């Protein structure tokens, strides 16, 4: 269900420091994980987010800060033409991008 010409913008904190911004084609009903997967497969192979994911709100592995709020990445439905700033939660030591110790 691709909706033509609409995007979502993902601003991802890299290595606990800078941010990279990605433009992802918008699709009705997509979540943060679908956007990250799109970025990984099509835009930047070096982004790091968990490899073990239940994708159904049960494992907690996708917990992240989305626009300043702690949320399960799989539970956040994205809206078209909106910016999502994504980073790790809390003060845990960042290993890479969304991965903490």
């Amino acid at each position, binding site marked *: *269900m691709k909706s033509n010409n609409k995007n979502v913008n993902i601003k991802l904190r890299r290595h606990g420091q800078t941010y990279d911004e990605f433009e992802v084609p918008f*699709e*009705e*009903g*997509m*979540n943060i*994980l*679908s956007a990250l*997967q*799109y970025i*990984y*497969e099509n835009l930047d*192979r*070096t*982004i*790091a*987010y968990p*490899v*073990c*994911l*239940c*994708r*159904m*709100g*049960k*494992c*907690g*592995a996708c917990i992240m800060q989305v626009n300043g709020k702690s*949320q*399960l990445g*799989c*539970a956040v*439905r994205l809206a078209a033409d909106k910016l999502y700033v994504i980073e790790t939660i809390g003060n845990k030591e960042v*290993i*890479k*991008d969304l*991965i903490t*110790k």
Partner: protein
Amino acid sequence: MKNYNHLITDVLVIGSGGAGMRAAISAHDDGANVMILSKGRLGVSGSTVTACADVSVDSNSITKLLGFNGDIEDSKEQFAADTIKSGWGLNHKELVDVFADQAPRRVKELIDWGAKVENFAISPGHTYRRAIIIKGNNFAHTLARQIRLRPTIQVLEGVIALDIIVKDRCATGVYAVNIMNGEFTTISAKSIIIATGGAMNVFPVTTAPNDLMGDGMAMAYRAGAKMVDMEFQTFLMGCCSPSSLIGNNYPFVLMCRAGAHLYNREGERFMEKWDPERREKSTRDKIAVASTLEILEGRGGRNGGVWVSVRHIPKNLFEYYTEWYEGKKTGFDEKDFLPDLMQDGIESMPSAHFWNGGIKIDTDCSTGIEGLFAAGECAGGIHGANRLSGNAMSEILVTGNIAGHSAARTAASAQVTTPSKEEEYAYYKKLEDMFCGNGSEDPVVLKKQLQKTAWETIGPVREQKELERAIRICDEVENKIPHLCCHGDRVYNKEWIDAMSLANMCDIIRITAAAAAHRKESRSSHYRKDYNKPNDSMFCNITVEKSNGQLKMSNCSVSTQKVQGVQQI
């Protein structure tokens, strides 16, 4: 030559789902030094945490041992008989007897450790009310708590086992990689338990978490162990759109619990042709085959699925049906991502859910390779051609416990053996070279090619020429592995992790395709377009092993023997 990390333990458990955790507890309590190595985090990775979950034991024991309101007419024998009926008679009978006998004690123990029983139910295929409802996350957290109460159990999270090190048909350790820092780690162990779950992610659409790629089965196969019943996979209806819900089993739940209907593009309720009485309440394998044929014959939708619809149900009644569904409580609700279900259907397709076969084990969970044991979904035999509902969750406790005891016993009299520096270097060099920059093969493209091939060839509908094509493609992809090209550094590198899983995917798809090509009949979830009826001459188990570098297949007569005096543990 490089220095790698080296660790030593008595018992090494690979995987931290229910089977791995239960195994570690028993091995520890028998006095062994235990290490758990897990791709995902302890207690929250694998299928265990996602289960809905019915945990089956015979109903008589629900009354007499567990003290709840069961049905005393039931017996362990009847439970075993139902399990074998559901498995189309291909189950390893001795294992089933051990399972039916020990399951109540294992579940009682779990409840004594604090697992919360939510309810009881009668599940399809069971003669009595045997489903004890314990949510998967509660089940997993209860076991994780027991691990933490045993602080000498070492838990290594974010470490992927790559291969078993074998010397003279004896397992001596594993080659592994710590994905958190990209370092290679060789672990030497006196005995090893594989508890890595199923291989559902060789398919593009699965209900199971992303970590389950069949790594343990592929490693055991390469180590020389036999695989059994690998042609039997369970598929159930999952979403094929939107991207956030791919594989999510909500459509299946709606069919079971809310009486949802299934339509093809022509608006036909096609299950009427296949099972006029039960229709959408038919068995999972029939629904999977029927839906796949509808899709293949061009009566599917844009996203490759058929439609699951609840439009015929009044809105306020539908709200009641889904009340029990836990969604909102965890913050995740499928309905947030779906269109209004009172208007639209959910485009759905058969999604890989459960791996019925696996590493062939005996009643002590041994694999035929000295020092190598297997437990849980990666092991084959108990379920035969088709698992009975709720049997996975009780089975992982039973085989986990047995494997833990067996591995501790073996470790008590075994020596530690370490690989030579040369062997180790040669092994890790291939993985380091995936970054060397000379290669041009894209791991993500190859992974997707394998997943697409798996769906087209070893999915719910199979035929000879397609199965042969699967094997050819696996050979081709395998030849490309030395020419892979990964980007970036080794710290938590997803592309490299995908690259390292390709060899396992090739082995799993090839073994499955070979067994499925060999089974020239249709039986349970194994449906062949070119042999669409069961054939009595195929009433046997197919085993697959690697012998002198070649895939070797054998027909094994189905075991019928009752177990005499199995050790009570």
